């Protein structure tokens, strides 16, 4: 392992930020403070964190309905995020998008998306743009195992390979599309096997191991930057909570024992152990870091709660851009 300390801590920090954000968001929803549907990312933190630590603000990502983790890992501002979940004017989308459409174009985060499979086509557009402008920027496209069955993925993957676009398709295979287990939605085990059908490399990686994701993503992203085209990177992971909301156990579509098994491979716990083992940081330092993040999250929640709702006039604003023409 030759990754430097800063990178390791950075990876840990990204994961902690996601976990803390999501746990608090879940609590707020249970308390009835946050309306709508929250699809939480708890359990999958290693994927977003491992990928995002290779990206700058000029690199883009497309996201999914389960998008908070992606935005947090991309550097999202807790305040604007919570304000958005609360539907406030100070939120990322002036409260108009909510959880399923949270986005930050300045960070290259092209939006959570309520339509499964909507990301891949948008991602190739951003990648096309990067190539057109002859930049070295890369677009990472996050999508689920369920989304891998949508036609949009197929169309985008084919075009990405054909044009050798600088894009990485990051499949977050958490074993379920909503309440349907992978083996009941596709007859294959490794979604990465689809890559060869487009003429791109397919890679499977342990999505609970942030270092493994970091390394595999690094290679795929570098490949894209070099102009060698797309990669399909499948990260095997697991969703600890329910499809929507926080309940993870006692559900009809999976056994608690399965959840318990996967929780033993909690990416945060695994990585913390590794950091301690490698003496990268002391338990106290990590504890401090977690506390700092929790404090930030609490501050952000307070900010959100103190923020105003959008004025009635906002209803008809932002439908069209008024410049140009």
């Amino acid at each position, binding site marked *: 392992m030759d990754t430097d300390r800063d990178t390791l801590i950075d990876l840990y920090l990204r994961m902690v930020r996601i976990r803390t954000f999501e746990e608090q968001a879940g609590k707020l929803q249970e308390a009835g403070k946050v*309306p*709508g*549907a929250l699809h939480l990312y708890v359990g999958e933190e290693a994927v977003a964190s491992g990928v995002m630590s290779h990206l700058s603000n000029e690199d883009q990502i497309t996201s999914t309905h389960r998008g908070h983790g992606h935005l947090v890992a991309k550097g999202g501002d807790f305040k604007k995020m919570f304000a958005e979940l609360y*539907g*406030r004017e100070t939120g990322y*989308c*002036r*409260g*108009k*998008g*909510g959880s*399923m*459409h949270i986005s930050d174009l300045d960070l290259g985060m092209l939006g959570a*998306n*309520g*339509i*499964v*499979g909507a990301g891949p086509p948008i991602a190739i557009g951003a990648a096309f743009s990067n190539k057109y402008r002859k930049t070295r920027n890369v677009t990472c496209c996050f999508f689920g195992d*369920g*989304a891998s*069955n*949508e*036609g*949009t993925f197929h169309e985008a993957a084919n075009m990405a390979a054909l044009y050798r676009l600088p894009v990485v398709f990051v499949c977050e295979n958490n074993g379920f*599309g*909503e*309440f*349907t287990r992978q083996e*009941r*939605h*596709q007859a294959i085990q490794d979604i990465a096997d689809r890559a060869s059908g487009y003429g791109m490399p397919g890679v499977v990686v342990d999505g609970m191991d942030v270092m493994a994701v970091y390394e595999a993503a690094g290679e795929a992203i570098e490949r894209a930057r070099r102009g060698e085209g797309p990669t399909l990177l499948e990260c095997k992971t697991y969703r600890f909570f329910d499809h929507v909301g926080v309940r993870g156990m006692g559900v*009809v*579509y999976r056994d608690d024992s399965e959840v318990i098994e996967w929780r033993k491979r909690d990416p945060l716990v695994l990585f913390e152990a590794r950091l301690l083992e490698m003496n990268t940081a002391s338990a106290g330092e990590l504890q401090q870091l977690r506390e700092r993040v929790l404090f930030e999250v609490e501050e952000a929640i307070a900010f959100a709660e103190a923020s105003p*709702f*959008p004025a*009635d006039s*906002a*209803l*008809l604003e932002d*439908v069209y851009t008024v410049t140009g023409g």
Partner: protein
Amino acid sequence: MTSTESSPKRELAYVQAINEGLTQLMRADPDIFLAGEDVALYGGVFGTSRGLLAEFGSDRVVDTPIAESGLLGLGLGAAATGLRPIIEIMFMDFMGVCMDEIVNQVAKMKYMFGGKAVLPLTIQTMSGGGTGMAAQHSQSLEAWFCHVPGLKVVMPSGPYEAKGLLVSAVRDDNPVIVANVKTILAHRAHVPEELYAIPLGKAHIVRPGSNFTIVATGRMVSESLTAADQLAAEGIDVEIVDPRTLQPLDIETIVTSVRKTHRALIAHEAVRFGGIGAEIAAQVQEEVFDYLDAPVGRVGAPFAPVPFSPPLEKLYVPNAGRIVAEVRRMLGR
């Protein structure tokens, strides 16, 4: 077909009415199957198909991958070869991802084949806003489908309609889109226990009245009832017509009402511009121009996507208050 005695007062929620309709239909006809995302093991994300897997097994209650074009094709191919599929598209907003199948394949196959295809296909979905689900999970897109020859479109306004229209839709030998309304799933009303059918293409006078006609679809029917109560206090005796079926549209019942009341307002959840209200308004003035004391009015959503923020969403979705205000405006009050 089961036909139990119906207790006259039995009430069901809208969601249960759908569930009972599905169950009874499937008991009566082995060619009916239900396919969709999470309809089997989970019983549907809205609970409409709960218990069906246990009763009918996985051959007839089919969970599918997230692949709506494939799903619609599954229904079309099965219908064209003699089955009677019910295909569930979870949210009406998702119709975009299988629009070609619905509009270019399902709707046109019969005509393109010179009449030879018989397509007893039902597509059931959930429309409407008001749940904090934002722009891609809150739309009412029925106007698109009403514009497409070959499709029928129904929009149940309550539990009784939900079951009765579903039964007719499934038994019809044509493709029918059943646009349920998610915000009224918990509404309760009397629903007969037997397998009854509400005829397609027939509007229903929900409330008789003498001096104002409101044509309301889906959730706007109950909102209009609330509005009518308020307006009654002001001496305005509203007649409410629920078209129930939007395609084919029972314009006769509507214009008969307007001939009596001389004023009409159409209320729907969909965006006002280009909504079904435009077609109804256009037809009403074509048919009974000389009876009209005022232009036909329309209440619908404003010209914007559905916003997430609760106060904005509340402003967005039409309701009784907006209907009352529009009626008053039309009467110059």
